[in-house]
């Protein structure tokens, strides 16, 4: 997984609440067996019209936001389906940081598996940043210091220390868990004694 440390980009603001993962990447694109190539179909139904032409007033179709790496958006982002295709599509488009006041649980976890930083801020701070995004000026994200810098201001954010470490070091959590193989084996052995039916033995 690619490491995440700091990021500078002009943020794009998408003012919709409860954006679900069907909206982020509709089902017709879930038929892939790969993780890549989904960026062009990100937000497909609100980004393209029925003829497949880009809808001009959609934020990610506009210069300079079409190159944004940061997406500011409404609360409960990523609700609905567990599809990891949603963070894959965001990542493939180039978005590696999302700023919202809340996220759906599965989506939030999925972000960290893909080197995407989902920042949680209070609604007031979101308003301030979204206003600033209209200036089309870069803001910067410092994960180590847990800060967002814009203009001459800064906003502090908080993040779980384990999740932060995974992003900073680009950790493969399967490799970390495999280091606990002995513990897993002993758990299984005990389970076989206590609840033999689990293994259908």
């Amino acid at each position, binding site marked *: 997984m690619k490491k995440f440390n700091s990021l500078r980009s002009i943020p794009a603001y998408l003012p919709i609440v*409860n954006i679900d993962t069907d909206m982020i990447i509709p089902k017709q694109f879930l038929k*892939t*067996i790969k*993780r890549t190539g989904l960026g062009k179909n990100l937000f497909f139904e609100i980004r393209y019209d029925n003829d497949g032409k880009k809808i001009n007033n959609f934020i990610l179709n506009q210069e300079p936001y079409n190159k944004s790496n940061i997406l500011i958006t409404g609360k409960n982002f990523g609700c609905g389906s567990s599809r*990891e295709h949603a963070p894959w599509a965001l990542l493939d488009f180039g978005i590696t940081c999302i700023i919202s006041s809340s996220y759906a649980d599965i989506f939030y976890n999925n972000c960290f598996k*893909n080197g995407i930083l989902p920042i949680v801020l209070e609604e007031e701070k979101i308003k301030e940043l979204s206003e600033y995004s209209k200036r089309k000026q870069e803001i910067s994200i410092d994960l180590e210091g847990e800060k967002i810098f814009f203009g001459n201001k800064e906003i502090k954010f908080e993040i779980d220390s*384990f999740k932060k470490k995974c992003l900073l070091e680009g950790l493969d959590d399967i490799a970390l868990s495999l280091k*606990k193989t002995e513990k897993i084996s002993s*758990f299984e052995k005990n389970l076989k004694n206590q609840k033999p039916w689990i293994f259908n033995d």
Partner: protein
Amino acid sequence: MPLTLYDKIWNEHVVNQQEDGTALLFVDRHLIHEVTSPQAFEGIRNSKRKVRQPKLTLAVADHNVPTTNRSKGISDKDSKIQVDTLAENCKEFGIQLFGMNDKRQGIVHIIGPEQGFTQPGTIIVCGDSHTATHGAFGSLAFGIGTSEVEHVLATQTLIQKKAKNFRINVNGNLPLGVTSKDVILQIIGKIGTAGGTGYVIEYAGSLISSLSVEQRMTVCNMSIEGGARAGLIEPDQKIFDYLKNKPMSPKNENWDKAIDFWKSLKTDSDASFDKEKSLNAEEIKPMVTWGTSPQDVITIDEKIPNPENEKDIDKKNSIERSLKYMGLKPDTFIKNIKIDKVFIGSCTNGRIEDLREVAKILKDKKKASHVSAMVVPGSGLVKEQAEQEGLDKIFIESGFEWREPGCSMCLAMNADKLKPEERCASTSNRNFEGRQGRGGRTHLVSPGMAAAAAISGNFDDVRKYQN
């Protein structure tokens, strides 16, 4: 310290308590399907890892499969690749698969319970957000992403942070014609689509205990629509009777040992919950969603909301956006809204009791001529049972199509979908924009309400069809 059922299941599964506050949890049951597993297997292969416990994993193709005649295979090229890839991966890693032509094939959350793969007190995961369905058996069941699917395949564990406890009590009896689907829609309407975020919900109370096993599954199934990753119910005799003699249920002396353990799976009477909510079942009415979020619910007697009455600007914008997408005018009675399609099926309402409910209402009646309607059974076994009971004949007689099992028009990954602006009374779980097809307009209802809408051609009160 008094514990909740969730606390107890959690504690029993901790392989390693990690310093950062997370825990490595053992996974007893892993369900996989064709859409969210290919990249996980690719990861396993690329890193030269193995599947740790192939026997604790069960696979089925459900999202992409056609619901029409299957003898010629899958015509959509990408769908076929995905379904074939699942078969190849299962073969390579020694995982049991119910293929498309196996009569045990069906929606992943329907076949788990049907086979007895789903059991009380277990941790069950699947790369699918409706995994909470299995919580009806008193298991901790939740949806995971594909990276986590890979983690489970490789280690039979997951890294998790403990959620908070939320109990929803529903007491009393449901009025005639009101079902567990209306109960969960009402709950989501009350707590909101993010009301359960960060919590595991335990459904309790006299109404919940009185529900059948299948009705409980409908309630737990939609926990994710209230933001909760998992929802569960204390297992009782109904659950044990349901599981007895299922193909993968414990056998012989293991059955007795399992029953002893399952009977201990109860929330302590003095356990405390971080959040609690109570509903009176007597006050619940048949529900219909009007908008593009499952929280947008009204009763069959009510009108479409007016955004002008909403003070919160975000909510006002959201209502306006939904009404525009749904092609609805504020203050219209929902009963006056005409429908084009009816979909009966999905992991929410594709089980035999759901089909019986629909057949009871459709018997000796025809669907409205402008409506096209279909029933998609949740599994091959549900299909077989329905045909044995002659339900298929009632559906066909009424003008419904009787299809092969799968997820079908719940998410429209196969050929079953709505055309732009088509309006559907659907027994599924999501009314998101484009969910059942681009521009399609979904209204979530109970199976009985869907049948009533099919007959009337507009939303109608199922209670008038109760004798």
